[in-house]
């Protein structure tokens, strides 16, 4: 399937759909517990990563949590 991932056209071989969790694994995204995902403009709850599916033509954005502290 063909996706747009972070603005870039991306081919995922031999898959017609994937869960968001599987997509992040396929893309070798590390430390996925700190990743926020937007699917077709909607930010997903982390609890939905297993159940939400992506298909050809979808636009996926992901980014890492940004935080820290002085302590």
């Amino acid at each position, binding site marked *: 399937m063909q996706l747009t991932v*972070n*603005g870039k056209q991306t081919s995922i071989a031999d898959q017609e759909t994937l869960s968001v969790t599987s997509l992040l694994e396929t893309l070798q995204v590390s*430390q996925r517990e*700190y990743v*926020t995902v*937007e699917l077709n403009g909607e*930010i997903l709850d982390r609890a939905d990563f297993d159940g939400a599916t992506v298909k050809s033509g979808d636009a996926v*954005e992901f*980014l*890492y*949590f*940004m*935080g*820290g*502290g*002085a*302590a």
Partner: protein
Amino acid sequence: MLKLPRAIFDALIVHAREGFPLEVCGILGGLDGEVSGHFPMINLDASSEHFMMDPKEQFGVIKELRAKGLAMVAVYHSHPASPARPSAEDIRLALTPDISHVIVSLAEPEPVLKSFRITDGVVEPEEISLI
């Protein structure tokens, strides 16, 4: 090396002072280590010791930069009462690859701004060139 326009350097100091005693945070956009845009962000923690950006706001900035052919070059935050060096939490949460981490300290009478590269928990100071 992080190339930082003097006007944005000054704006970061102003942002940190305006937010005091809370931490402020933001994103610096540009290309190839040269900053050309400054995006103050909401600190969801509203804390003097922590910051957390709003992912929705982050997505908006990233897309705006991409549409201009730019990228995120650095994230910054302030340390209202501690030195300009990454805390253990800063290091642990430095997850975005290939960006600089700028810290503005207001712990001394004169603000101190430093930049770091943090990769897999390893911190390296980074030279800042004012342009």
